[in-house]
């Protein structure tokens, strides 16, 4: 029911709770963490894209006063478990590797040694004293090089640089192409660029010297993920000790197995998924023995570990992430290994050069596309081949590239009628940094589809709006099913959103406007892009990524606690890093409970108190999942509060009203009790009233939300540009987003998320590129080479909302990623439009001024398009 909407906070532009702390300069970001007796780490990194490591001479570095420990890859073999692939797909190779390079470096910045010293400065000084003998190998810097059989392979055990292949057919593709009146073919490229949160990575491994227990302070999107990944990969002991421990804690070991059995019994979807995957898993286990050994070693190590020695993880304020902090990084493992070795706390803060070079890179993809159409613009089918350059080392616990490939294939039809699709995916490995998820990791589907629709429209002589109108799925066709599987429910509003965007911008009259401007010597253009985003998608959506994924992630736990003092704490597994959850979740809870927002506290990021969940804040899921969980738990809490208050006020629970934190009988507001009174009563009454309350807590209600009906967000972006062919500069005088994310909890938060995403999309097209030369040497290691747009480059962004009324529970949907998904396509389409009289065809995404001038024929083409 929609009772939350009746409240006073939900839907309002409530100021942010977190600003009281963050704008005072009192935030606690990772570099602000300081623990007693803490040492500092720095990494020695490879200057080569690809090289054999000969000898490493540490003598001089070790002799430097203030240096406590230096570890190399070899040293980690006895102290840690190697990173291994956790996913199971056919024709997929996942390499096994260590936190520090062993034998070979595979990209510029590959960590070779960790130095721990009294200060960061000393650790860096010591790095410079380490002598490494490298034997350079040819680098793999392009897809062509990767697939060239005469070139070196990045991972010799795989014998090829092609690490993933998949081919799927949905619908009758042959019939679609046989019936086609035209087949239009094009290839689109997207360049490697990067998340670049303003706070780079960092970690403080705090070790209690007396107990040896470790608390990991992390800048992460998921605290539990950090805890368990570090637990899995560190603390290596010889197998005999592991086994001895397992025997000595027999009951614990049994409990683990029983827990797994219970979970499977309660989750038939997972059993089915495991059955489906069994042949694939078996094959991988046999063909990739190295991985099998690594995986078994790490998991047996984890089971044979005294649970008291498991680390805890703590996330404080996180200075942005955009997907970069969904992973546990090699540096994290090296830092924890060093801290455990020393029995002392160690801090590592990444600098910008490191973050640009190795911290997070993404998006290097291309698609070959053929579209079967009728002359009237009706799309009959598509054939697509996606290629991703995933760099050298996959992310952990999962490689971002294969997830992006699976999602791009699932989302390829977008909100359009597409009866048939053939989709091939290839992932290659190269001598570049790790590919990680970046805001809307499957964005290539929108870029390619929306670019292609313009190409098709031009070739068929249709307007760009017309081709979309002919193929967009309208309200009258819903519910429907995408040919790739996901269900489109009646709230999927892409067609209405699109029409509103056309209305708001007068796009249908654009040709006239542009012709007049061209005649007056002004080169203007307009482009648009329409997409939907699974935020979180229909129930079971994640099963399109892999079998069992939904069962694993579609569970949002929450604990709602009435404290003894009458305040309310919500414990969530979310780790907010700019999304303002301390505000939005409190808005929901306050309205549901009938209390002022100040009464609510959102507690997150501490694995000692947060309920278990590995996802954290990612994938635009929180709006539905966390909000729904909050509504469920606070509803349960409210019922208990009302029951107790009814006793205190000697009335029937149905007559109780809670308003502004005062609880009274309807009609007699003067006789009221407070939440503190109720808390007191609960504690007096004991267990039955208190739920699962612990310690001083008065009442605790725990809930698990499965996402309910889920749903789609979506938008149409309309971008206007003006291009100066003297300089190649592209100005954006107007940018319009019309979007639908369901009911809005806080419009300022929603608008902020959209604008931030659009800014990143604009940056990607006009400024940002993680440039490598054709040997794999990295060339964008500072903010002077990697250009983040400033306030001068990003225009005001005009936003219009469409809300589709519904009685669906928790009808709030995500907007974290959409801005970045729509912007590259809309902007590139606008640029092509502005250059249309010159016959310019845009098939790439990076269009800095020099490239604009090349495309327009103002200067000769020097650079290849990548």
């Amino acid at each position: 029911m929609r009772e939350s909407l009746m409240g006073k906070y939900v839907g309002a532009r409530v100021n942010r709770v977190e600003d009281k702390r963050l704008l005072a300069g009192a935030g606690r970001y990772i570099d602000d963490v300081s623990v007693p007796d803490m040492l500092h780490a720095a990494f020695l990194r490879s200057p080569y894209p690809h090289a054999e490591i000969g000898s490493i001479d540490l003598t001089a570095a070790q002799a430097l006063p203030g240096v406590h420990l230096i570890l190399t890859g070899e040293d980690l073999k006895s102290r840690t478990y190697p990173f291994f692939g956790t996913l199971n797909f056919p024709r997929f190779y996942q390499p096994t590797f260590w936190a520090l390079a062993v034998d070979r470096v595979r990209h510029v910045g590959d960590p070779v040694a960790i130095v721990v010293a009294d200060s960061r400065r000393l650790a860096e000084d010591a790095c410079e004293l380490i002598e490494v003998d490298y034997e350079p190998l040819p680098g793999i810097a392009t897809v062509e090089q990767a697939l060239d059989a005469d070139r070196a392979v990045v991972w010799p055990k795989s014998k090829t640089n092609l690490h993933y292949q998949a081919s799927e057919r949905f619908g009758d593709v042959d019939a679609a192409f046989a019936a086609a009146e035209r087949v239009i073919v094009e290839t689109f490229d997207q360049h490697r660029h990067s998340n670049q949160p303003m706070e780079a990575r960092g970690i403080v491994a705090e070790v209690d010297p007396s107990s040896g227990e470790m608390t990991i302070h992390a800048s992460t999107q998921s605290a539990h993920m950090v805890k368990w990944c570090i637990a899995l990969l560190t603390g290596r002991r010889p197998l005999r000790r592991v086994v001895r421990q397992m025997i000595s804690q027999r009951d614990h070991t049994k409990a683990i197995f029983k827990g797994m059995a219970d979970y499977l019994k309660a989750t038939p979807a997972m059993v089915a998924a495991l059955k489906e995957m069994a042949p694939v898993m078996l094959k991988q286990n046999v063909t990739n023995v190295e991985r099998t050994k690594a995986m078994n070693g790490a998991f047996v190590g984890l089971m044979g570990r005294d649970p008291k020695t498991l680390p805890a993880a703590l996330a404080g304020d996180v200075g942005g992430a955009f997907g970069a902090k969904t992973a546990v990084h090699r540096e994290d493992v090296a830092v924890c290994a060093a801290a455990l070795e020393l029995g002392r706390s160690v801090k590592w803060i990444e600098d910008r050069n490191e973050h640009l070079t190795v911290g997070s890179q993404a998006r290097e993809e291309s698609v070959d596309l053929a579209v079967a159409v009728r002359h009237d613009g009706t799309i009959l089918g598509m054939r697509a081949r996606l290629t991703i350059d995933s760099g050298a080392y996959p992310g952990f616990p999962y490689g971002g590239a294969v997830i992006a490939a699976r999602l791009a294939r699932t989302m390829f039809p977008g909100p359009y009628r597409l009866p048939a699709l053939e989709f091939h995916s290839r992932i290659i490995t190269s001598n570049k940094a790790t590919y990680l998820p970046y805001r809307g990791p499957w964005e290539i589907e929108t870029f390619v589809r929306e670019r292609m629709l313009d190409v098709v429209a031009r070739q068929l002589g249709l307007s760009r709006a017309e081709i979309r109108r002919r193929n967009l799925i309208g309200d009258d066709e819903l519910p429907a099913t995408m040919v790739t599987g996901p269900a489109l429910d009646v709230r999927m509003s892409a067609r209405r959103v699109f029409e509103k965007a056309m209305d708001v911008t007068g796009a249908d009259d654009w040709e006239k406007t542009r012709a007049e401007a061209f005649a007056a010597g002004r080169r203007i253009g307009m482009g648009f892009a329409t997409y939907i985003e699974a935020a979180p998608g229909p129930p079971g959506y994640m099963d399109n990524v892999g079998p069992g994924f939904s069962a694993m992630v579609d569970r949002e736990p929450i604990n709602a606690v009435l404290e003894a003092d009458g305040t309310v704490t919500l414990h969530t597994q979310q780790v907010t890093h700019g999304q303002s959850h301390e505000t939005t979740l409190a808005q929901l809870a306050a309205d549901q409970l009938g209390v002022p927002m100040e009464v609510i506290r959102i507690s997150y990021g501490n694995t000692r108190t947060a309920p278990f969940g590995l996802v954290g804040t990612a994938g635009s899921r929180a709006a539905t999942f966390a909000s729904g969980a909050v509504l469920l738990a606070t509803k349960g809490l409210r019922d208990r509060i009302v029951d107790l208050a009814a006793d205190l006020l000697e009335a029937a629970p149905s007559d109780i009203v809670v308003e502004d934190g005062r609880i009274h009988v309807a009609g007699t507001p003067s006789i009221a009790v407070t939440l503190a009174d109720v808390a007191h009563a609960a504690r007096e009454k004991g267990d039955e009233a208190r739920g699962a309350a612990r310690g001083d807590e008065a009442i605790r209600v725990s809930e698990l939300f499965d996402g309910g009906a889920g749903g789609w967000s979506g938008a149409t972006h309309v971008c206007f540009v003006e291009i100066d062919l003297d300089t190649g500069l592209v100005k954006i005088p107007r940018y319009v987003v019309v979007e639908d994310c369901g009911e809005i909890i806080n419009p300022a938060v929603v608008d902020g998320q959209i604008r931030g995403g659009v800014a990143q999309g604009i940056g990607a097209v006009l400024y940002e590129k993680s440039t490598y030369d054709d040997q794999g040497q990295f060339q964008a290691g500072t903010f002077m080479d990697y250009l983040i747009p400033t306030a001068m480059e990003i225009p005001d962004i005009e936003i219009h909302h469409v809300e589709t009324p519904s009685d669906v529970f928790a009808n709030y949907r995500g907007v974290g990623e959409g801005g970045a998904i729509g912007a590259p396509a809309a902007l590139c389409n606008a640029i092509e439009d502005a250059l249309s009289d010159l016959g310019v065809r845009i098939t790439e995404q990076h269009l800095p001024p020099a490239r604009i001038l090349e495309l327009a024929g103002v200067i000769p083409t020097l650079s290849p398009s990548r």
Partner: protein
Amino acid sequence: MTADRHPLSMTVNGNRIDLVVESRRTLAEILREDLGLTGTHLACEHGVCGACTVALDGKAVRSCLMLALQADGGAIETVESLCDDDGALGPLQQAMADSHSFQCAFCAPGFLMTAHCLLAEDRDIGPTRDEIREELSGNLCRCTGYQSIVDGVERAVTALVEARNA
């Protein structure tokens, strides 16, 4: 690598500070590590992002590029000084909060100090929206797309101008 150390005297947020510091250390390091003023953030340490902006004698400077010893004899203000005496947000901070200016807010201290110096400029009429954009273009924010930050500064300017003319 023996450290050459020199005396340093400055005022920080109105307090007189006397230290002996290694000459290679930056002002940002001294503020964060020695004085515990962690509101000043480091996001690039090469002078581009502006996260480390503080006021030196009323002018915005990048504390990551400046050696601490260069601030000798100067008056430094950091983001911590913008709060009211009771620790509540000061007018500039409040205007930014009212405008939902920030998200992760890692960039916020730099923007706040840039805006603080801009607002302190003695002028009859406040800067226009375009001028504000230009003034803020030395600070990078990765989350917001800047519009909300410009809104916040504009709101603070309007309030200040109104107060001056009242």
